[in-house]
């Protein structure tokens, strides 16, 4: 079995354009607080969500917009929710970190790791309600250090729950590199709970799709939970307006804000030895530098672009598709925020 590259590309492009519209609204101030986008992880989300059907459930993290959109939730309702309108998906009460869809059995949470227990609960209900249904949990690499998620791995394994745990691994938890604070690599950790674990390139939707097909199939037929690790790059960094990214994109403006107090404190009498201070400085500079070598600028890391390049040559069909989606999102935008 192989995926239909056109429909996967369509899913991803639609999500990308939708989130780019959200980014614009956020920059214009139409959206207030934090805004975490899924731009860069569309390959993972599309590759997994494409396998879901009625009765399946999704437990989402702080990047729930893309999965919900790809699953089929009304884009106008989602956008109105992000705009905080009473006619939004959740009446403006939830917001982008708390998107709920009764129709698609989806629950989001801004609490890191909460997708684990939620997916177990959805899967438990599935076992009782309609055997054959599955639950997917989406979370990041940082979440792997959260106790409740680890407990969920154990519970799902002990109860053979039909869960697919999807780790969208961008290597970062906000400003912290995961390899610096995690005991071992994610695969070993997942396997330590008895979960079958597979690793794929999350920038390649076809790879994800195939791995998800196997895992979801296993879950549907009583084979129990699986763990999928998919690497990706978040094109906007942790969230919109992310300081590290701002420093990189606008060093003249954002740089001094950081550098001046930093230097003053570095030279302040009283405190650590020169060696200790330098170790500290290395840490800060390191984080900024690893952002400077900005993988976001590398087109190879954009799953949407890669999906586009992987399409069979058919210029007309492509143009038609992109035009259709462009128009749709334009229409959504117009309808949601007159």
């Amino acid at each position: 079995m192989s995926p239909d590259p056109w429909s996967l590309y369509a899913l991803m492009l639609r999500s990308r354009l939708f989130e780019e519209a959200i980014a614009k609204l956020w920059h214009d101030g139409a959206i207030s607080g934090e805004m975490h986008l899924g731009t860069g992880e569309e390959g993972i989300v599309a590759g997994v969500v494409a396998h879901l059907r009625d009765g399946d459930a999704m437990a989402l993290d702080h990047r729930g917009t893309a999965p919900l959109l790809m699953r089929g939730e009304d884009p106008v309702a989602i956008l109105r929710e992000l705009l905080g309108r009473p006619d939004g998906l959740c009446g403006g009460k939830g917001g982008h970190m708390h998107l709920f869809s009764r129709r698609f059995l989806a629950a989001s949470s801004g609490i890191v790791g909460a997708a684990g227990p939620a997916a177990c609960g959805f899967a438990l209900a599935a076992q009782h309600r309609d055997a054959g249904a599955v639950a997917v949990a989406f979370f990041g690499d940082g979440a792997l250090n959260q106790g409740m998620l680890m407990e969920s791995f154990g519970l799902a394994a002990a109860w053979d729950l039909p869960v697919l745990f999807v780790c969208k691994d961008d290597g970062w938890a906000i400003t912290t590199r995961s390899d610096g604070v995690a005991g071992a690599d994610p695969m070993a950790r997942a396997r330590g709970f008895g979960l079958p674990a597979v690793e794929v390139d999350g920038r390649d939707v076809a790879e994800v799709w195939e791995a998800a097909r196997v895992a979801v199939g296993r879950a549907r037929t009583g084979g129990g939970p699986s763990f999928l690790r998919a690497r990706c790059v978040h094109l906007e960094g942790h969230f919109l307006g992310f300081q590290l990214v701002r420093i990189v994109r606008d060093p003249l403006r954002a740089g001094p804000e950081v550098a001046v107090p930093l230097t003053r404190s570095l030279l302040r009498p009283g405190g650590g030895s020169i060696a200790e201070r330098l170790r500290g400085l290395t840490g800060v500079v390191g984080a900024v530098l690893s952002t400077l070598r900005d993988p976001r600028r590398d087109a190879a890391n954009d799953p949407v672009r890669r999906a586009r390049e992987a399409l069979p040559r058919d210029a007309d069909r492509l143009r038609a598709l992109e035009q259709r989606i462009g128009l749709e999102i334009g229409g959504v935008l117009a309808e949601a925020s007159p």
Partner: protein
Amino acid sequence: MRTLGYTAAIDDALAQAMAQDPRIVVLGEDVPMLRRDLLVRFGPKRVRGTPISESAFLGAGVAAAMAGLRPVVELYMVDFLGVCMDALLNHAAKVAAFSGGTCTAPVVVRAPCGGGYGDGGQHGQTLWGWLAHIPGLTVVAPSTPADAGGTMLAALGHDRPVVFLEHKLLSETWLEFLGSGGRTTVRFDVPENGTRGEVPDPWEPVPIGKAVLRRPGTAVTLVSVGVGVHRALEAAAALEPEGISAGVLDLRTVSPLDRDAVLAEVSRTGRLVVVDEDYEAFGLSGELAAVLAEAGVAFKFARVCTRTTIPYAREMEAEVLPNMQRVCKAVRQVTR
């Protein structure tokens, strides 16, 4: 009418509901042994043992409720909510609000609570006032077998998350398991009417949010829940000879509070003594004072609560938890 013990009553009402509603499942540590009578009747799919992973299985219960099940999630003790509070604070309590009312999480969290048998400060808390602080949580703490069973039935029919607190001192089962361990050499100050009593057959739901006047009184109103209700009743009886007429109001539900019942009683007596086994500060006793003050009722006020971490030594514990003597003292103070 038949007579049942406190925990037997809860399990009996639960069994009645489970027989009628296949959506009800029971999960928790040791549940296959603790609820063995349910296990052999409803089978291992509906009565499930869990690993010691409260965050995972309580969180799972919340989501399962969103997906249409009616989970009863058992915690070994309410004290252990510390390790999984997020599932209540940020999830169960907020699902309905976040989703604009499109989703709800009708999970029942059942947990033994309370001290009085020398198990130390991590195993004797009640925490009902603490939980009631969180908008979206319903918190009940019945004080008799009849109320315990009927309230469980109501909780199972409630469309929001309910924390069902089962006081260990009222539960022969829990006291046997954790306290006496089959010994006849230890004594506990167990309120008789709380531990065994007549119960209806079949069970009828006891409405959530409705207090009940256990004893009428004209001079002062004692308001309490759980074991405190019985301490209050003992005190009221002891004070009668002194010519003090003390009424006792059993809230039964901590949140939502039955404001009307409290206002009605205290407006008449003008005196309120709260008997609360939970911690004193920033809790139930304060809320009751606020409710009256908001309503513009003038009242004399005293409270008999737990002020510190509960000590292990039985004698020290008996002093720290509300007892009949402390209640009498408080009543005399406001009636003098």
